[in-house]
């Protein structure tokens, strides 16, 4: 079959779900992409995650391999950046954690004591503002809810596989989504507060400014 391999879509997934993905799917074929199956029945190969870059450490001095830790409201994932990811490495060198970043990368798996863990191999790391982070939380929450619904329906092949392998407690994931959305909502309430405060400050500053301009001599009648 004449088959052109298509680009893998960058999945939106919270660290909590990604970290609990221990099942690897490797379709047949020489260059077939490797996926991890998440507990909510999604195959992922590439992900897009926006969160706080908490650490970057060179694993050994002068090794040129850096370990990063990236956290969203639900948990943190590890990633490794080396000279084989030149774009990611270039921008990582400029970043001083903690910093809000968007990471696009491939999901890797590694095995310790017969357990499979996931890590990221970033293709790109960029510093972003909170607007991007907020939309990401919103979007990822929405897609996680969709996955929970699909798991309930049990129609999809991968969902059935996920039930078989993980038997997940869906309420746990609902709780995680809720928690992430609540953190977003609280932030919004803070933004509104801040804006109010700023207005007040501006008002006060203006007031002070005007005070200086008053010519007191008139009042003194001199």
């Amino acid at each position, binding site marked *: 079959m004449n088959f052109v391999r*298509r680009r893998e879509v960058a999945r939106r997934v919270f660290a909590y779900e990604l970290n609990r993905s221990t099942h690897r799917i490797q379709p047949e074929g020489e260059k077939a992409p490797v996926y991890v199956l998440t507990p909510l029945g999604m195959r992922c190969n590439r992900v897009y995650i926006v969160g706080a870059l908490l650490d970057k450490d060179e694993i050994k001095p002068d090794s040129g391999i850096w370990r990063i830790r990236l956290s969203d409201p639900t948990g943190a994932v590890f990633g490794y950046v080396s000279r084989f990811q030149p774009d990611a490495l270039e921008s990582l060198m400029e970043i001083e954690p903690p910093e809000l970043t968007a990471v*696009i990368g491939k999901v890797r798996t590694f095995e310790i004591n017969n357990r499979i863990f996931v890590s990221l191999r970033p293709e790109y790391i960029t510093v972003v503002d909170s607007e991007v982070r907020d939309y990401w939380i919103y979007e990822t929450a929405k897609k996680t809810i969709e996955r929970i619904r699909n798991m309930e329906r049990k129609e999809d092949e991968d969902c059935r596989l996920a039930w078989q392998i993980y038997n997940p407690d869906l309420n746990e994931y609902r709780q995680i989504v809720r928690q992430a959305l609540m953190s977003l909502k609280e932030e919004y309430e803070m933004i509104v507060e801040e804006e109010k405060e700023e207005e007040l400050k501006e008002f006060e500053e203006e007031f002070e400014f005007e005070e200086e301009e008053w010519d007191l001599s008139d009042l003194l009648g001199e």
Partner: protein
Amino acid sequence: MENRIKELTDQIFEQFKRSGFDINVDEVYKRLKLLIYEFKVPESEAIRTIKNWLMKELDIPREQLIIESPIVKIADITKAGQWISLKAKVVQLWDSNSPNVFQVGLIGDETGIIKFVIWAKSAKKEVEEGRSYLFKNVVSDSFGGRLQVNINRNSEIIEIDEDIELPPREMEVIGALVSIQQNSGLIQRCSICKRVMTKGICPIHGKVEGYDDLRIKGVLDDGENFYEIILNEDNIRKLTGIDLERAKRMASERLDRNSVLSELKGKLLGRYLRITGTRGGRYLIVKDVDFLGRVNKEEIERLLEGIT
């Protein structure tokens, strides 16, 4: 009126005959007349009732009956469960994770574009992007709140020697910019053919005079699909404030044309963009682009309420 009933009777007779079944024409005529005249049942319902009755009577499994569905336009598909035939062109094929799905993607005609699924069980030959086909006896379905057509065992796909025209489709995509590809940033174009030159060499005309241009070839990804996009100088200026003149200045100050690309990557990658554009072959031709602003609080609350 009598003629109409006769016509419908013949249609049903023909259809069963094609599938290899002989039916009692008089009986069908009588029943049709009763339903349509006496009971004022709409024609389509009457026909369905008769067909169901015949299948039961003659013990014909539904699959064996070749039902010729009417050829309609994509815009006519309004609800799930319609049996129809379509003349359409394959616009795009997607990857599928499910072993139940043989092929999935988009087909279109001049009235619209719709998702299609060819089930693995349907045992069909592959369709190809850019070719036009007659999709016979397919059924509309609703998945995730959107209409699609399913090609199943009873369907037939016949390639046709017609180039079905697609609507000038303007679409809006919201996604994250997940990649910026080679030949982006401050580039040089051949002054003869406008192709992008690498290291001062045009792939067609060799070593010729070039001129500078600013563009980005990138990938916008919404988590379900990806779209290859091209941003031109105007788009780039709108998003980053960098235009061709400034890009050239940056390059000469830093003695490095690639510094422009690094700068653009830093400002654009990993950001959400809202793009309106039209699909032209492989690329989405961008008409308008902007950063996506802050998600509003109502949306967050709506999601929270939906978690049960």
